[in-house]
């Protein structure tokens, strides 16, 4: 397959572009997504497809998602943007009570195959209301799918799947990844099925389970573990949290007998909790150490850069957690 080096932002743009190109049911709506104001993954698209396919909206998150739902009920494939994930609370009611439930509540007579793109803003010193990582909320809502890509290739392939998926999808982008580059298949038909984790680095001693930005922490940690500690870490990128690829993650940990879950969401009651709970059930008696979790500290995100840097996972914290699993002693809960 033909492949081109591009940033995550460009890869997402390409996915949107090709979706708009090949299927006229697709349209985009959100705040500041049209030209000349747009600067994110939607830049250029309104110029190419017109402002009725790439629509700027008022600041009305609830109605943006609600309108997307209405259009989807009528057979369209809307991609709604919630600019920053911290604002998703405003649209939460439409997501959980309409989008996620319509198929069930109407026994399939109406469905809302919307895609909600949103972006985690953490790491920019913008403070607590512009830094949250809230995918755990939507994992807990039956009917929703939840996708968090880590590379430009995955971004393109997963966004394409999300747009054409028959279920409502929450697609979580990460601002700190938007500028990162990688090879991306240019074929418009390239898609990555939802629910398939990806082993980003094979290994034998410990499994690092991650998704989104944390994949890069895990890969950096794996390199350090190999180089400095002669530990072979396998990096499993979940790619989607719902559906969750339990098989891939369990079979990896069955081999390595040690696992660390890493994510930017706060650890307490976060996505990692579900993963740990699943692993301890599936692999009871087969683990050499408790499953470790590395997540954001349980505090509102501080604005001052020096403080903020202490909050999120880092390769160093992942290395430490992996080492704890290798000591095979009982680990504390405050990792």
């Amino acid at each position, binding site marked *: 397959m033909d492949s081109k080096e591009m940033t995550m932002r460009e890869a997402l743009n390409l996915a949107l572009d090709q979706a708009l190109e090949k299927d006229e049911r697709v349209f985009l709506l959100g705040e500041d997504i049209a030209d000349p104001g747009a600067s994110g993954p939607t830049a250029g698209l309104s110029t190419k497809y017109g402002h009725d396919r790439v629509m700027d909206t*008022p600041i009305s998150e609830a109605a943006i998602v*609600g309108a997307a*739902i209405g*259009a989807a009920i009528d057979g369209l494939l809307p991609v709604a943007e919630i600019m920053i994930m911290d604002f998703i609370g405003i649209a939460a009611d*439409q997501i959980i009570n309409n989008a996620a439930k319509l198929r069930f509540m109407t*026994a399939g*007579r109406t469905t809302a195959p919307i895609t909600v793109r949103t972006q985690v803003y953490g790491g920019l010193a913008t403070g607590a209301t512009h830094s949250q990582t809230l995918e755990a909320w939507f994992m807990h809502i039956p009917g929703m799918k939840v996708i968090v890509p880590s590379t430009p290739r995955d971004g393109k392939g997963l966004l394409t799947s999300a747009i054409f998926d028959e279920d409502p999808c929450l697609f979580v982008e990460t601002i700190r990844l938007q500028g990162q580059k990688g090879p991306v298949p240019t074929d418009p038909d390239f898609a990555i099925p939802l629910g398939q984790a990806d082993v980003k680095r094979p290994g034998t001693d410990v499994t690092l389970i991650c998704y989104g930005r944390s994949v890069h922490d895990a890969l950096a940690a794996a390199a350090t573990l190999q180089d400095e500690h002669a530990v072979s870490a396998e990096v499993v990128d979940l790619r989607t949290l719902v559906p969750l690829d339990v098989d891939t993650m369990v079979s990896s940990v069955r081999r390595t007998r040690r696992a660390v879950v890493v994510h930017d969401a706060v650890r307490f009651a976060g996505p990692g909790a579900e993963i740990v709970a699943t692993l301890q059930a599936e692999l009871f008696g087969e683990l050499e150490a408790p499953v470790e979790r590395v997540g954001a500290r349980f505090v509102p995100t501080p604005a001052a850069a020096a403080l903020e840097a202490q909050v999120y996972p880092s390769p160093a914290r992942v290395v430490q957690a992996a080492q704890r699993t290798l000591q095979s002693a009982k680990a504390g809960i405050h990792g």
Partner: protein
Amino acid sequence: MTRSAEVQRRIYALMVLMKAADDRLSKGIGTGEFICVYWPSRGQEAIAAAMGISLRRDDQLVTTYRGLHDLIGKGVPLEEIYGEMMGRTLGASRGKGGTMHIANPEAGVMLSTGIVGAGPPVGVGLAMAAKRKGLDRVTVVSFGVGATTTGSFHEAANMAALWDLPVVFVCQNNLYAEMTPTRDTMKLEHVADRAAGYGMPGVRVDGNDPLAVATALDEALNKARHGDGPTFVECVTFRFRGHYFGDRMRYIPKDQLDSALAADPVPRFRAHLLDTGVATDEELTRVEAVAAQQVETALQTVMSADAPSIDELDRDVYATPIRFPV
């Protein structure tokens, strides 16, 4: 606008069917014959009947938990409605959605919502779809005054006006939101005056007069259909049985209830038909009997239908069942 005798008789037939359907539920639940949760529409029939004759079949409706009358007006078969309310396989959603969540896209009923205010944004999206597809279909969003104090309504009204969308907001003003008089929830005297704040026309009509409602609706529908944007139509009415079935209505002053009952739209329209010679007493009595019979038949069909089987539980959660999580 004058309506033909035939249309007027159709209106009455709809009103009577709505009333009969409500009466029968009330009787059945009241006597313990069956159980279901229910937000009665008795008293608001004129509005729904006017929608019934003014909307085309391809026009769409978004309504609420208090939707029995609206659903009947839009042509949803009674079996589907009763079936859904009573959790039977022949319900609109095989009993999975329940009273508050009935949809029937073939009849144009795209959404019923239990979340106050959640309908208008969805109506906006349906209208956007019509516009994108070049259809001259209109989406009517029906709700109460209470819904107009939600942020969701505001965002949707603003968008509908901004984009000249083919939407008609039909506010069934029954003077209460649950147990709270709606005058205690807004400073404005007339909810129709909210429309000005969006740059859209707002009209206020007697919601107990189906002809007045139909006239207002026709104008609004016509505007919407021709690209001239949304209208907010306030229809003043009353709910005779309170908020939910079983509501003791202690919060409603007796004289208010009495005068509301005195303005009952069903006998009032009956009298109008007789007075104007549109129909005879015999004819109307027959219509009423037919309605009662139709309701009874639907009820009996529903009562003898099955409850949904357990395997319905994991069906329709996702398009394709996903192994985990379940």
